[in-house]
């Protein structure tokens, strides 16, 4: 048991993240009657999951260099074709690992 490596900051971060996530889960259900079912707000909320994940990952792809971009593109195509996130992740990681191993 290594509970001692859980300092206050770690516990605060984890429990804060947990509270935020649970708040969103329950909040969405409880607010569902009040959230506008159409119009701009709905279009915004429907577009948000995709744009958020893309924003999360775009700088990381750029930072990984040209082979990182190739790997990300291959991952994207694999997801598009197979809809299998795990397989697609393997494809990207293998490309980056191989090019690093070859010193490219």
């Amino acid at each position, binding site marked *: 048991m290594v509970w001692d490596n859980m300092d206050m900051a770690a516990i605060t971060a984890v429990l804060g993240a947990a509270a935020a996530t649970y708040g969103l889960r329950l909040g*969405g259900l409880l607010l569902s009657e009040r959230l506008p079912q159409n119009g701009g707000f709905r279009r915004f909320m429907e577009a948000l999951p995709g744009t958020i994940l893309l924003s999360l*990952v775009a700088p990381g792809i750029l930072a990984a260099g040209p082979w990182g971009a190739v790997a990300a593109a291959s991952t994207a195509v694999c997801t598009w074709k197979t809809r299998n996130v795990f397989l697609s992740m393997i494809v990207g990681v293998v490309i980056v690992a191989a090019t690093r191993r070859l010193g490219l």
Partner: protein
Amino acid sequence: MRLPKKDKFPMQVAVDHRPSHLHETAALQLRRGFIANLPVAASVAAYGSVLGVLAAQKGIGWSTLLLMNLSVFAGSAQFVMVDMWAPPLPVVEMIMAVLIINMRYLLIGASLHPLFQGKTLRHKMAMMHLVADENWAVTMAAHRSGIATTAFLFGGGLCVLSAWCAGTMLGHRLGAVVQNPEAYALDFAFVAVFTALTVSLWRGRQDVLPWLVAAVVAVGVEKLLPGKWYILAGGIAGALVPVLRPYGGQWRKGKRDGLG
């Protein structure tokens, strides 16, 4: 993780279609939810093991990781937390980032409204914690055939949670032995997982402009501002496009249907 292909869900919902389901006990529905999520849980465990390896590399103890699994229980947010994990911990930034990434749970929660019709607040509070992307998707598929219940959803949550914990804990063990994670490109695993998850959210041609705006704003803000604000900035900027341009891309949809 296998994702739904348009309206067809590849994961087999292992349920029978007898109308008697409504008279079944909650325990039985919970069991069916658990079983229906087994195929998707296998891939959850697999990509959880990547998170475990990364966490071990960052020096996060297994107990902290387990606490995170049980309390946060959100794959993408946990990947970001582990990514940001460097002493002194940027606690406020981390919680903000989790809040931003998990904003989609507002939608997911809202979409479960019909399932929870007539349920007490206590029931809602108890059931909603174990709602992840995966068991939500399986439940929504089952709901279309009219066979989903809140117990089914919860059973699926238990299944995904078990797989998530097993995968991350196994990965954490492995991570302690892997000496040089860069050689195996494990640092790229995060980018790869999220590239794949992003593509799975593509809705069609109407997403071209919003996604372009999101990518450009995110990359720009990341260069200009410290912290993780670029996630929020890019996400909001991109999502505002269909608000300002309500029919953007729609006219092309009919012409190029099937490509989206």
